[in-house]
């Protein structure tokens, strides 16, 4: 067994001696330095798409607009993901510091934490933190008006342009891109949308420096990463691990000894079967969301896939053809094969369909269905048929 998962202690570490000390210290440096530091750190967005954070902030800083927004995407809805909840409960000041630093370097004066409706019970405590931040931001002379925007229950709003649409009072339907939010975001103004963990990580980069941060992770995925671990595991919960471990090592650490498959990256990610555990590396560009669900041999992978597809058919926004109808067809298709109403070869037709969905869907939701679909259908074909 190689590279045992290395636990890291950055994000949950008790670095700050005083609230908002990171912010205060960071604001003593130049904005250019901060952006350079972030770019150098190799930090990528932790929401799923994995865009380099420093570059995003740089582009936003370059936008000429008197109004800019910073939005923290806390619409964590990926099944198997709950790290952002934990961050907002345990280290909200690191998240808010990250947002404040972003506001400072990009010149934004308005900010929102877009909190998923399911987490409404977090609002009170979070609001207290925001109120505390307001006191400190006044002290350091930062003009950044931060508030909570409560979502209303739609997975797709985790997609940043759908999120913006819903904030504008519309259906959460992803926009055509380009333009991107950093050019034309909330109410048409330049907007940085980053995931909760991204902001927390950014504040940590500012705290410990790029050189230290870069020591962790792989060439492609720098730093530490939070993993939401659930399923057939005696150690469910959120763990901060160094990227680059194999699924084998991961399963050995977190599985129950009978692990049959690991779903890496939520339902939008890949299902890794036991035979691939050794060669599959967590952190090779595929898993920035950090959801890992562990299945042992008692689980029916047909049921797992059925559950995912049911989820997709409901949570697709429905606007684009491949995603709206494709999800329904995949679901109906595996049911028909299971019941013997369609031959096993129909699965191949469905695999082609999922590839078409990847190629033609408007947003990441429809594009990513094929990840779990093809990895489960290909690796557990027998279970789909019998």
């Amino acid at each position, binding site marked *: 067994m190689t590279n045992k998962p290395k636990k890291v202690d950055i994000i949950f570490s008790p670095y700050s001696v005083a609230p908002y000390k990171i912010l205060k210290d960071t604001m003593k440096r130049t904005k250019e330095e901060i952006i350079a530091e972030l770019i150098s750190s190799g930090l990528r967005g932790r929401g799923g798409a994995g865009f380099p954070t420093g570059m995003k902030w740089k582009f936003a800083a370059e936008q000429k607009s008197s109004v800019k927004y910073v939005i923290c995407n806390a619409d964590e809805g990926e099944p198997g993901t709950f790290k952002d909840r934990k961050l907002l409960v345990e280290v909200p000041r690191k998240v808010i510091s990250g947002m404040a630093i972003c506001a400072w370097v990009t010149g934004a004066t308005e900010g929102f934490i877009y909190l998923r409706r399911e987490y409404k019970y977090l609002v009170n405590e979070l609001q207290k933190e925001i109120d505390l931040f307001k006191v400190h931001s006044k002290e350091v002379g930062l003009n950044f008006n931060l508030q909570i925007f409560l979502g209303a229950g739609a997975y797709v709003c985790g997609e940043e342009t759908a999120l913006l649409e819903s904030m504008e009072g519309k259906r959460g339907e992803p926009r055509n891109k380009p333009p991107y939010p950093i050019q034309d975001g909330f109410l048409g103004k330049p907007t940085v949308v980053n995931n909760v963990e991204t902001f927390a990580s950014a504040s940590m980069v500012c705290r410990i420096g790029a050189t230290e941060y870069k020591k962790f992770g792989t060439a492609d995925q720098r730093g530490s990463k939070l993993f939401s671990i659930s399923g057939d595991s005696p150690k469910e919960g959120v763990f901060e691990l160094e990227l680059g471990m194999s699924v084998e090592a991961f399963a050995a650490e977190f599985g129950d000894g009978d692990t049959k498959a690991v779903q890496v990256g939520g339902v939008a990610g890949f299902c890794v079967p036991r035979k691939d555990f050794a060669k599959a590396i967590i952190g090779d560009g595929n898993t920035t969301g950090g959801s890992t669900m562990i299945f042992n041999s008692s689980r029916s992978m047909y049921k797992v896939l059925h559950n995912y597809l049911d989820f997709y058919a409901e949570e*697709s926004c429905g*606007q684009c*053809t491949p995603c709206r109808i494709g999800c329904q067809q995949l679901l109906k298709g595996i049911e028909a094969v299971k019941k013997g109403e369609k031959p096993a070869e129909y699965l191949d037709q469905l695999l082609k369909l999922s590839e078409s969905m990847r190629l033609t869907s408007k947003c990441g939701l429809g594009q990513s269905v094929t990840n779990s679909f093809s990895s489960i259908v290909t690796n557990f074909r027998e279970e789909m048929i019998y």
Partner: protein
Amino acid sequence: MANNIKLTIDGHQVTVEQGTSILDAAKKINIKIPTLCHHEDLCVAGNCRICVVEQVGKQTLTASCATPADNGMVILTSSPKIRRARKDIMALLVSEHNTQCTTCYRSTNCELQILSAEYNVDNSIYMSVLKENDCKIDKASWSVEKDNSKCIRCQRCVRTCADIQHVNALAVTERGKDMKISTFMHLPMNEIVCTNCGQCITHCPTGALTERRYYDEIWAAIDDPEKHVIINTAPAVRVALGEMLGYPVGTRVTGKMVTALKKMGFNSVLDTDFTADLTIMEEGTELLGRLKDALVHKKPVSLPMITSCSPGWIKFIEHMYPEHLGHLSSCKSPQQMFGALAKTYYAEKKGIDPSKIVSVAGMPCAAKKFEANRPEMRDSGYQDVDAGLTTRELGYMIKQSGLNFQDLEEDSFDKIMGESTGAAVIFGATGGVMEAALRTAYFLITGRNVPFEHLNILPVRGLEGIKAASIKFENCLPEYSFLEGVEAKVAIAHGLTNARLIMDQIVAGTSPYHFIEVMACPGGCIGGGGQPIPTTNEIRQKRIDAIYAEDMGKPIRMSHENPEVAQIYAEYLKVPLGEKSHHLLHTKYRKRNRY
């Protein structure tokens, strides 16, 4: 140009203006990319995904309608990857669709049908995901039928109702597999804030939205020897009907249309133009009265006065600006004037029992169907207009009747309410009512013809959304001396989004106009919700050109010179706005819910 973009499409270098979509850039070099959700009248949606192309260097395919061309882009519009993906998308749409095309009103004129044939989509690839609930057709509206089982969720109707009409009666509802195009709480179409304009119909690529058809009832009436069935056809019909019958866009088929209708068994084929001319007399008199009240008697009157010919516009203002109905002319639309006179004046002259008359209107319009069924439109003692047919329905009826339309002789409208002028013909185009009104008003006020070459008042013509013009009255006849030196300011709006701009000015008290023409549909009636599909700006312009050509060809081109109009005043109505006119030709409006 400063901001030109250079890209490569299928190996060809293309230079386009910044902001041009890949779709339009390809069009420039004659490459046709299939589309469904795209419509040149509407904002970009990018949701059907049929227009995907390959952008070299990108992992996924790109929606060409929704992606601006960028410098250095290398685009492929046809590759195995694209063909497979498009075919899959077509197959998916078909799997969600009610594929009983044989009985569909839009069969052979359906964009989905044409594309799925082109892509040779095998209906059995995927299982049907058509929802049972979607198969209930909403037939509650007099004007618009909605069949969700034929809907491909392209949202063209939603964007039409929002962008062009600013009504937003249709919306996208629910999500995911349940997502559909619907109304407020899925209420039937007759219970919502809908103007019945039918623009959603002409923008629908399939048979999901259609006009409520009445031709079976009309055939039944024609077949009934007891009934005297008459039809009047609107000016916009004669310049568009040809499109249904194999003629190029912009062909005038007036004479053949009359022949066809006669051969089909209509007892009398008459011209809505007659009541259009009558409208000018009534509405012109009303306007002059209001101006006199304002200028001479200093009475508070509702100015600007606004035209009332367009029933989509009428329902719009009743819903949206119920406090400002006083600005409307009290004149009924030409269709309804015609209906009221058909069962009174016409019946008397012909000696026919009005209860035996079935009065049909051939219209470019969906809203006319609702208008005909307004409870207040029974001034003849009967339902004044028994049925409104769209240009499309007329086209199908002519086809059904087995006539070889193109070989028909040309005939002219029957007498009594069949005489028309060029002024009435141009009612079909945006600005036409205004031009007709100005031709007559100027003559009545000054005793001279409008000071425009060949009577063509060019400033009120064209497809610009809102047009404004003014005309100064000098050397007025003694009766109109109060208008001496007055510069009459007029405006023309078409499409209800433009109408809203005009109305908002009135609400704000900043409207500088005396008289305003509003038509619900872009381009006026030639672009009506009952016209042949498709309708685009290029097509609108060709129909408009045909309308003005028809006008130029008329021996009489001013409403007050229509001999039948003179006759009806002499024999029956006496004077414009007289008691009989008031009873038969004018109406009242009602407040409706705005939300």
